[in-house]
């Protein structure tokens, strides 16, 4: 190997694979915003579109504005390092502020995860008023929102060595979500986070979130990866009973359990790696679907509602059929525990979302079930449908009657998340 090759390898290895996604670069796509953002298509009149996967950037003062005096100096704060805004807890780097590729002037950045600094990006990424305006322009009535940065990741918080602070950070995040929901007039519904590593605190915070009016939780597929008991353990019984009994959904946003560097080839530029990794993270929810179906959990919690988010739908018939085959060929010993078949588990427990796909919603909707499919945009992430939301909806659902469109765009989400409209 040539010396230069070795030096390149050494340089590449010293940063996480996605670090380039937050550096300057990429290509800006000039967007004809006015012609593509005129609100709800008249053909969809009477439908309140619920966009079931979007991201809200944690505002720089989210924690400092809510922290009690004893935590003021300890909670996450944003610092600019090498021209990139990043979260810090003390001297610990907690990562970037998350993806937002919509520029202040409504043009879209391609080939990167975000603008390096918050002030370059669309303010709707983290502020309610411009967010609602963007939604009105897209013809979207309400959004289900997820985190944007990793500042509340369980493993990172567990590594702080300060359990009280870690739990407080989660609670402040959830408090901010309640505030956002109210400020938006019940149009922005953020999925709650939990202190997964502390059962008593987790169960208590889950109850608090439901009582405060939050509409669901987001969970990791494999908590054991960061040292939290598996969903197979009784550690989760009380929480899952609570979700089951209150009709509160749990959501799995992608499945990023796999190691991106194990999937892609050495020598790829960032854009090449991301293209493969983003696809695999979406399809990774095959594992989430399978884990729940073979676990026996769904026979204990028979009303549990599970959202498979930002993972599309084209793969679902294959995955469920593959699991049907596995039930026949591999699982006869578990027939006493698994009382239903994969398609039955799917229809009783799971919902999926689609955004960029055309083939899936056009050809597979009735196979998957018109009651099981939700729509999403992934705003303001790199893969987001932006702008042109209405055109894509009409392309994919234009061939269906009004009742199907209303289910996919509104009422399936309203029922899943118990939305107040």
């Amino acid at each position, binding site marked *: *190997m040539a010396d230069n090759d*070795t*030096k*390149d*390898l*050494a*340089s*590449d*290895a*010293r940063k*996480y694979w996605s670090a380039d996604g937050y550096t300057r670069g990429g290509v800006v796509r000039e967007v004809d915003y006015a012609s593509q953002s005129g609100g709800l298509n008249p053909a969809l009149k009477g439908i309140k579109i619920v966009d079931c996967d979007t991201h809200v950037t944690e505002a720089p003062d989210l924690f400092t504005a809510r922290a009690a005096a004893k935590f003021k100096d*300890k909670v996450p704060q944003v610092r600019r390092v090498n021209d990139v805004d990043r979260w810090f*807890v*003390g*001297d*610990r780097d907690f*990562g970037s502020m998350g993806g937002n590729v919509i520029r202040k002037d409504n043009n879209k950045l391609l080939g990167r995860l975000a603008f390096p600094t918050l002030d370059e990006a669309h303010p709707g990424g983290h502020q309610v008023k411009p967010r609602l305006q963007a939604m009105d322009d897209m013809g979207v009535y309400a959004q289900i929102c997820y985190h944007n940065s*990793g500042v509340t*990741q*369980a*493993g*990172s918080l*567990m*590594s*702080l*060595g*300060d359990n009280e*602070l870690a739990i407080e950070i989660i609670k402040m995040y959830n408090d901010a979500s309640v505030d956002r929901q109210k400020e938006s007039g019940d149009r922005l519904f953020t999925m709650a986070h939990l202190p997964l590593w502390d059962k008593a605190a987790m169960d208590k915070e889950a109850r608090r979130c439901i009582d405060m009016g939050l509409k669901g939780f987001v969970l990791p597929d494999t908590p*054991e*990866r*960061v*040292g939290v008991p598996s969903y197979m353990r009784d550690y989760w019984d009380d929480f899952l009973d609570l979700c089951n009994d209150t009709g509160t959904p749990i959501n799995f946003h992608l499945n*990023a359990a796999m*190691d991106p*560097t*194990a999937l892609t080839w050495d020598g790829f530029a960032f854009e090449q790696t991301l293209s493969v990794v983003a696809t695999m993270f979406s399809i990774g929810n095959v594992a989430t679907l399978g884990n729940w179906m073979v676990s026996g959990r769904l026979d204990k919690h028979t009303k549990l509602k599970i959202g498979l988010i930002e993972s599309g739908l084209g793969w679902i018939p294959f995955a469920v059929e593959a699991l049907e085959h596995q039930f026949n060929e591999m699982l006869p010993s578990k027939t006493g525990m698994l009382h239903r078949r994969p398609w039955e588990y799917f229809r009783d427990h799971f919902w999926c979302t689609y955004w960029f796909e055309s083939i899936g919603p056009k050809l597979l909707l009735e196979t998957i079930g018109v009651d099981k499919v939700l729509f999403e945009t992934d705003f303001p992430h790199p893969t987001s449908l932006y702008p042109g939301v209405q055109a894509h909806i009409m392309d994919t659902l234009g061939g269906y009657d009004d009742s199907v469109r209303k289910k996919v765009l509104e009422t399936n989400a309203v029922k899943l998340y118990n939305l107040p409209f």
Partner: protein
Amino acid sequence: MTEEPEDVVRAAADRVIQLEEEVEASGVAAVDGSELAHARAALHAWVDAMTGVVVSPGLGRVTIIHGDGRRSSIASATLPYLMSKPIGGRS
């Protein structure tokens, strides 16, 4: 009934081997005696030769960087915490 520690270790090793057999790969387990001592020595030497490390507790992952820039990933639910300093520093 509680399993003996050596049974737990053997069961864990067997499970790894069984799963690898699904893709026709064979793993060699060392759970005691000189084979385990040899494995430990080789692993110590390998770790001692590393030139960098990335600790990612949020992902349950530690990435070892070798002298030529190549990387090795260790997925672990415990190692990232052992390697993370509590905020405020560790004495």
